[in-house]
């Protein structure tokens, strides 16, 4: 049965099955990650180098920060396609503030608050007007990036204060970058939030059955609104890191990143229809994607060809277990 509604109306069976596959999913992903790591280290003599590996984390840390918030949102049955455009708008706002002489603390505040505002804007349309999030965020995706284009046009903002570069280029200890540390801290926070708190329980409940969640006393709309605020906030954090790392803002910054974030979340075992998934899965998926792009980069494979591998990985990882169960059940009967 391929239709969405039918799967949604059998939550018990689906949940237990999804839970089991999720467990095996994480181990499968981990095996994939280790395999890619080994292949990489044989494929290129430059791979096993602490500095290289540390640089490689830039491939995924910014996307993963958003992916954690996105994972919660998708588990709750919604999606936010506007995250890359929020980065563009937050980055533009920070660039604009720099032209008026804002220092690093002000820039951070501006970046975070623009992210929160954009998240609130999405949340307003989805929870208060009750519109489907995929359509709303396709709209705000054009809107937010459009505002960046209106402000910037063909230009680029530069001239960020020297201390601002710490976020994207700084090291905390030896080879461990600030971004890597942020990634770890955010992963732990989201892991606790989703797996150990009532809020996380509410997120799962909403994703499995919004009506039942509502009648069991969960404020469905409020939780969803908070989740949109969180993706907005994380996009703000990513905007600070990315702007600081690149040292300039263009309206085309982070183009297409929303799809990579969604890919990362889905690869991490989160059900795109909502209701199941885990933060450890997303962490492993982030490493898998980072390792794949980094390894292929060392082999001089162009970026666009890497996307073939990411696409195949996405479809393959999801299709293989289903193909397996299909063949197994056919063998039995």
């Amino acid at each position: 049965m391929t239709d969405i509604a039918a799967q949604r109306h059998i939550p018990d069976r689906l949940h237990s099955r999804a839970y089991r596959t999720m467990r095996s999913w994480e181990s499968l992903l981990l095996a994939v990650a280790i395999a890619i790591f080994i292949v990489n280290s044989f494929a290129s003599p430059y791979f096993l180098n602490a500095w290289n590996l540390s640089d490689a984390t830039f491939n995924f840390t910014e996307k993963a920060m958003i992916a954690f918030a996105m994972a919660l949102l998708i588990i709750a049955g919604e999606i936010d396609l506007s995250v890359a455009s929020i980065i563009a708008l937050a980055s533009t706002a920070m660039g604009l503030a720099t032209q008026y002489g804002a220092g690093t603390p002000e820039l951070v505040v501006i970046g975070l608050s623009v992210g929160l505002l954009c998240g609130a804007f999405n949340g307003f349309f989805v929870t208060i007007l009750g519109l489907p999030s995929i359509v709303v965020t396709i709209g705000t995706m054009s809107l937010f990036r459009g505002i960046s284009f209106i402000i910037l046009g063909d230009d680029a903002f530069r001239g960020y204060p020297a201390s601002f570069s710490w976020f994207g280029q700084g090291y905390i200890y030896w080879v461990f970058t600030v971004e890597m540390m942020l990634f770890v801290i955010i992963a732990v926070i989201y892991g606790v939030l989703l797996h150990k708190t009532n809020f996380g329980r509410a997120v799962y409940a909403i994703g499995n059955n919004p009506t039942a969640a509502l009648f069991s006393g969960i404020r469905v709309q409020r939780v969803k609104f908070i989740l949109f605020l969180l993706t907005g906030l994380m996009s703000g954090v990513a905007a600070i890191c990315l702007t600081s790392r690149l040292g300039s803002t263009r309206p085309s910054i982070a183009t297409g990143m929303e799809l990579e974030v969604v890919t990362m979340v889905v690869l991490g075992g989160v059900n795109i229809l909502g209701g199941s998934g885990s933060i450890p899965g997303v962490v492993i998926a982030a490493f898998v994607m980072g390792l794949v792009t980094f390894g292929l980069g060392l082999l001089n494979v162009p970026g666009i060809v890497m996307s073939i591998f990411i696409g195949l990985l996405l479809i393959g990882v999801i299709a293989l277990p289903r193909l397996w169960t299909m063949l197994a059940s056919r063998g039995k009967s």
Partner: protein
Amino acid sequence: MSRFIPVRETILAAAIVVLLILIASRFSGFVAPSNLVNVFNDTAPLIILALGQMVVILTRCIDLSVAANLALTGMAVAMINVAFPGLPIPFIIAIAICLGGAMGAINGLLVWKLAIPPIVVTLGTMTIFRGIIFLISDGKWVNAHEMSEGFTGFPRAAVLGLPILSWCAVLSVIVFAVMMSRTALGRSIFAVGGNPHAAVYTGIDVGKTQFKAFVISGALAGLTGYLWVARYAVAYVDIAGGFELEVVAACVIGGISIAGGIGSVGGAVLGALFLGVVKNALPVVNISPFWQLAISGSAILIAVAFNAQSGRKKGRLILKDAEATR
């Protein structure tokens, strides 16, 4: 009465007319027939793709790979044209449609046989198709001087005052209007999106119908791929980058419900025309093209909010419907 006048389409058509009047009040040249023909011709690819996307969305799926499919087919036929300049154009078009349809079939099979959510499948195939373009072309461009004259001239050739590109859009609209209202396939597409459970009990294979929708969308993307590359006389990896979202936007503005089952051919066409008029009018009324994204984004939000209001159930709801919060 309301049975005969579709409200959404009428309002959208009125909005387009008001838009045209506003533009004409300052720049009368915009509504000159020759310019309107140009606007329609510019919008033709969007109309064709929106029709395919409409069918997919009606069955509760989404096809994010249309632009990548278009680009890959365009590159493939351009390279075939360079290698065999003598091939007749009908043959090239047949190749484009089959190639696009085959890519649509890949999406459809993954959705039908493996039950992978359509958004995941097409997200994956989108990046795969784009990557394959790079592989087959080595990142090189196919330029105008390499293509044969017949290849690039075909979509621009005028028949009865309209370029063939426009005629392709007109023809697609007619074919779809008939298909959606007069054939079993059209009915089953609405049935699958409206209520999959009921569709199953009436003997409709939900997965197979979704498969067919993807093949239709893919075939149209393939056709547009040839028309696009031939019209602009250039093929490269990033052709029509991000166009898939514009196609979805046209459908959404046209009142096609993303939850499936609700929508019409007229809506999709008018949604595409609305975006086309806005896009073409901006430079004319001296608004920088940089405003285009923000304006189309606002248009999507307004259209969605409006559709949700008009589609809201009358009367008191005691139990909030689960489908509404989906």
